[in-house]
């Protein structure tokens, strides 16, 4: 058994589910012979053929809408957005059609929408964004965002098996940068469960996606440098988010830093902070603090993007501020 990358884990998750259930299929731009812009579906057409690894016209709204229709017919489409940024072109189908069909008509529309997202690749404003907050606030959608290969595979499997619409945010920066040995047997990561990525008692960083790794590293440094142990809670699922685990760790650490790669204002961190404030107010020794991207579109040129992103340095600085409050 050898280690596989985050990207390969996504592919394995899809492949195994497609073997298990013939109703599962993939559709998107260039997913077939080409294997997708990031090669996530590479080789899959060889095993499953063009009917189940289906290239589509450049029509994000139709990709989602057709996916809904196929789901009504009992299929389980995995719709790929070439970049998460383009999900805005299918926005209406997601938030009004897909999100509501079951609630308003009792019609199930199981589907996964894959969104390669995130920055740090010099993609500029339209190839680097993290659009999950728009969906996080939309009733009827589930939202997941794995940070490790293990979770990428396990959450993909859960998403495919889920009878609802699951927005799957995969972080492009992590694709080939992290590797892990995965269990040989079938496993899933349940949607809605956070994971304690690092234990600690002086504070907790609640985060997901790429900043999970930065946070763990920062906490390691803080442990060495200052002797403080800070926990890292990897949400993994954003909607529903794991209220139980959040409150437990908050109540035992009493100091909370929320870190996310998308912009600060109106981000998911706001909701988490409000939730923690409402439900664990008496336990807080300091205000819930947040570190996030700046409130501008993702800039292109390296010095700007570095300035924009919630880098390790910024996480560390904010953590020190929190600990010294």
């Amino acid at each position, binding site marked *: 058994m050898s280690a596989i990358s985050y990207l390969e884990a996504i592919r394995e998750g899809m492949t195994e589910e497609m073997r298990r259930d013939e109703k599962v299929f993939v559709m998107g731009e260039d997913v077939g012979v080409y294997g997708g812009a990031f090669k996530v579906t590479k080789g899959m057409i060889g095993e499953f053929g063009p009917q189940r690894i289906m290239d589509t016209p450049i029509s994000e*709204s139709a990709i989602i*809408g057709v996916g*809904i229709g196929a789901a009504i017919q009992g299929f389980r489409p995995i719709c790929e957005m070439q970049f998460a940024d383009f999900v805005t072109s299918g926005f209406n189908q997601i938030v009004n059609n897909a999100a509501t069909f079951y609630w308003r008509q009792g019609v199930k529309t199981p589907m996964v929408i894959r969104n390669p997202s995130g920055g740090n690749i010099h993609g500029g404003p339209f190839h680097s964004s993290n659009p999950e907050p728009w969906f996080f606030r939309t009733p009827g959608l589930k939202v997941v965002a794995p940070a490790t290969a293990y979770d990428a595979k396990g959450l993909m499997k859960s998403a495919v098996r889920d009878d609802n619409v699951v927005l799957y945010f995969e972080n492009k920066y992590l694709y080939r940068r992290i590797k892990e040995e995965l269990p040989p047997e079938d496993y899933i990561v349940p949607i809605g469960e956070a994971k304690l990525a690092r234990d600690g008692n002086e504070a907790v960083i609640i985060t997901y996606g790429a900043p999970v790794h930065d946070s763990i590293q920062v906490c390691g440094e803080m442990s060495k440098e200052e002797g403080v142990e800070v926990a890292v809670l990897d949400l993994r699922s954003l909607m529903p988010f794991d209220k139980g685990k959040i409150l437990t760790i908050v109540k035992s650490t009493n100091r909370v830093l929320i870190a996310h790669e998308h912009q600060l204002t109106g981000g998911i961190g706001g909701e988490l902070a409000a939730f923690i404030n409402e439900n664990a107010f008496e336990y807080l020794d300091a205000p819930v603090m947040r570190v996030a991207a700046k409130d501008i579109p993702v800039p292109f040129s390296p010095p700007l993007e570095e300035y924009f992103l919630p880098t390790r340095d910024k996480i560390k600085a904010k953590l020190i501020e929190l600990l010294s409050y």
Partner: protein
Amino acid sequence: MAVKKAGKERIKFIIEDREYFDLNDKKKIDLYYYMQVCRKAEEQIIRLYRQGKIVGGVFTGRGLEAITIGSAYALEERDGLFPIHRDMGAHFVKGQTLKTFFAQYLGRANTSSRGRDGNLHLGMPEKHIYGTISHLGAMIPVAVGYAMGAKMRGEDSVALSFIGDGGSNIGDFHEGLNFAAVHKLGFILVIENNQYAYSTPTQEQYAADYLADRAIGYGMHGEVVYGNNVMAVYEAVGKAVVRARKGEGPSLIEARSMRVRGHSEHDDAFYVPKELLQEWVKRDPIENYEKYLLRKKIITKVKIEKMIREIEAEIREATEYAEQSPFPEPEDCMRDLFA
């Protein structure tokens, strides 16, 4: 080289005296029956609306019965129907009951949407009727996907949806039709060209001679029919269904008619020229079809009167049923956000 298009007047606004596809007398009477059911049911809705009993606004398909009924009559049970806001006629053909219809308009609990979705967003999944969302055009890709699902399962069932002369100008129309054409799916889109989109006349919605000509740009079958001749509509859609089942791909059928009431019941349509309205009131799809059936001796006056009495009785009964149906429990709306 510049592109060419076919000449201007492509249809006659009369019920031509000829054979129509596979229509026999029984089917012709069926079509008449559904048109009367739809007309009478919608008249009842208007009555209830004036009595303040309807939840939400009221849109009707008055004058468009030939389109919605002629189209849906070409479907089998297993085919998917994706009706929009003037397509109650199609519902009834496909198996929507008068009881669920009235219950829905009164906001009651006993419909597939359990009081959650707007009155005309009625569905009936067990009959493969999928309630629309309000966003015009949004159901087109979904219906295309339904047709794709059928194909993937190796079945020959088709999907039918509708769109207005106004709604035809939204992006999903384009993406959905193009997708259907590329994959040669069994999808049929009927354009209900009723000359107005709310207050906006067609020349402010599009500049083409015929919306059906958009079919050329997608590489699919396109066709224009007189929308007030139920047999012609049935024929065009019926043939489209045959093509679809054979795997010959989608069709775009433009049915020309006129919206003879306001956009909805609160709108007196002051912006519609009186002469235009009069002209089309005279072309009423039910009255003229009735004349045709009588003239051809397919039906008798006596039979018609009996039929209408039965329909009216059924409508009264359904209305009572609906009025006695419970409103949903408040907390019920919190259930089933997720399956």
